[in-house]
């Protein structure tokens, strides 16, 4: 009776997971979807505690209490700009948990009182292979997901170099390491009762591989990496489900694994890059091929009063926000500027590049935080048609997403990436700290366009001064 009730609860939980993800796909129902998924999780956890013969329930509850408090505090204190790091961190914790479960299993088998598995090892049958194959996948993928996520987080947070870090024979060492891990996994099955030590070596190598796998990938590609590692963690949840013959983990894990992988592919598409190119860290390698296009590198500055007049007497202004705006916490000031200009009869819209910010859709979240109205955020395809009728484009802390080289220069590493065609507007004002290159490390000829004026300064202070100047008109 009890075990049937548990099974039914698990079934309901899986249905809630699927509906939750589905509802999360629409702006109106997204929050409800998230709550449904969370409800499903709570139900599944609660049901698990009624598993017959479950030991150490008190300790488990204590662990959940600690994790809940810490997780809740972290998620409420994090700044929205640092959100990608947070997601990466949480994902790493999931991966670590999967790896720990696998180790605890191994330790239990070799040092515990459960003799079932020990006898099975002497007479290996298909169940034995099935079980250890799942265990090894949990261990390897969980380990990679853990260290990989932590390095990805470090690259975004800045405690690990955001550049593509390379070393001699990097591809060879990485692929070699994978081969060694695979070979050791096969070896394990041939070692009679299996060998406990081999498992620990596999774990250590997997942790190392997670680091080496993410290091060569540039910081700009971290969202793709995080999304991929997220789908890895889903996979480990599924294999852990196989270990315990637990359907809710299995189904939940497979759902996250496949959904996460599709999301990864969608993100790559938005940047017009292949997943392989991202994983090989190919972003920066292209810069070696010098472009034969000559750029006239004279640029023109604009002062505050000219900029404010240009904006206030425009009919239509499009603001292109980039990560620089988010770092400077300038979302609120930009909203203030928007309101001021609207009061003067200017039509203001935002042109949002799919990968503006540090994750797809990240910029929408940041602008939503400062109460910018939803219908003012225009997607790239739509806003590109409007640029020829736009009087002024204001580029704030964005760089690569407005670089015409993506359309014009086949030698450029970002060639082929869809961009916001800001250069088709009548006037362009670029707010930027200096003339330095963007995240991808390439020159942007938009800045040297005769229609472009540079307004140097930190996004927030430059915008605040601009707001004052417009007010003073």
């Amino acid at each position, binding site marked *: 009776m009890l075990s049937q009730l548990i099974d039914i609860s698990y079934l309901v939980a899986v249905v809630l*997971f699927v509906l*939750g993800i589905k509802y*999360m*796909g*629409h*702006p109106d129902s997204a*929050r409800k*979807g998230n709550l449904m*998924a*969370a409800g499903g*999780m709570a139900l*599944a956890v609660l049901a698990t505690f009624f*598993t017959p013969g*479950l*030991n150490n329930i008190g*300790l*488990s509850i204590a662990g*959940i209490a*600690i994790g809940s408090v*810490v*997780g*809740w505090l972290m998620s*409420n204190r994090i700044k*929205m700009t640092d959100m*990608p790091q*947070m*997601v990466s961190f*949480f994902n790493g*914790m*999931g991966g670590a*948990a999967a790896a720990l*479960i696998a180790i*605890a299993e191994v*330790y239990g088998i070799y040092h*515990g009182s459960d003799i079932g598995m020990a006898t099975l090892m002497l007479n290996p049958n*298909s169940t034995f*292979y*099935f079980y250890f194959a799942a265990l090894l996948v949990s261990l390897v993928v969980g380990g990679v997901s853990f260290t990989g996520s932590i390095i990805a987080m470090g690259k975004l947070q800045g405690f690990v170099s955001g550049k593509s870090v390379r070393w001699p024979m990097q591809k060879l060492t990485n692929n070699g390491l994978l081969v060694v891990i695979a070979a050791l996994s096969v070896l394990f099955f041939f070692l009679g009762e299996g060998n406990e030590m081999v498992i620990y070596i596999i774990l250590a190598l997997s942790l190392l591989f997670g680091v080496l796998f993410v290091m060569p990938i540039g910081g700009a590609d971290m969202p793709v990496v995080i999304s991929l590692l997220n789908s890895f*963690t*889903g996979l480990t*949840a599924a294999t852990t489900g196989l*270990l*315990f013959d637990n359907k809710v*983990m*299995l*189904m*939940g*894990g497979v759902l*996250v*694994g*496949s*959904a*996460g992988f599709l999301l990864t592919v*969608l993100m790559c598409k938005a940047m017009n890059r292949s997943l392989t190119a991202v994983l090989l860290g190919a972003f920066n390698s292209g810069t070696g091929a010098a472009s034969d296009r000559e750029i006239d590198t004279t640029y023109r500055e604009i002062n505050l009063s000219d900029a404010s007049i240009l904006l206030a007497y425009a009919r239509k202004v499009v603001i292109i926000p980039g990560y620089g705006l988010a770092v400077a916490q300038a979302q609120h000031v930009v909203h203030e500027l928007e309101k001021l200009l609207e009061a003067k009869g200017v039509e203001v819209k935002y042109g949002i590049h799919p990968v503006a910010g540090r994750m*797809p*859709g990240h910029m*929408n*979240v940041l602008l939503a935080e400062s*109460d910018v109205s*939803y219908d003012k955020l225009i997607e790239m395809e739509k806003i590109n048609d409007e640029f020829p009728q736009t009087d002024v484009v204001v580029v704030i802390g964005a760089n690569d997403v407005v670089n015409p080289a993506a359309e014009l220069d086949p030698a450029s590493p970002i060639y082929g990436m869809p961009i916001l065609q800001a250069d088709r507007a009548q006037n362009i004002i670029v707010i930027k700290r200096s003339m330095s290159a963007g995240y991808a490390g390439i020159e942007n000829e938009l800045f040297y366009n005769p229609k472009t004026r540079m307004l140097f300064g930190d996004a927030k202070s430059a915008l605040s001064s601009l707001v004052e100047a417009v007010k003073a008109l």
Partner: protein
Amino acid sequence: MENLLALISENLQLIYVLVLAVFVGVEVISKVPQVLHTPLMSGSNALSGVVIIGSILVMGKTDADNYLALALGFLAVVLATLNVVGGFAVTDRMLDMFRKKKK
């Protein structure tokens, strides 16, 4: 090889379910507007914390005097909970912002 084939026929039902689940995962997410990619990624990240069930189960079959296994299991419970609670909470915070500005 025999083992592998035996494995497949023994678990045929399971394999069917898995294949279908992959399609569900792909279908459910393929129509999502770009605006929601970040919250969705965060939300599905929280879901991958479902390994929390595994951590409770591994604790549940550990002997009370097997201290190392207990410590490993306990750490797994804490980290998986971090993933679940932190993940859902941060997603809710993000989505809350979308809702507010609709008014």
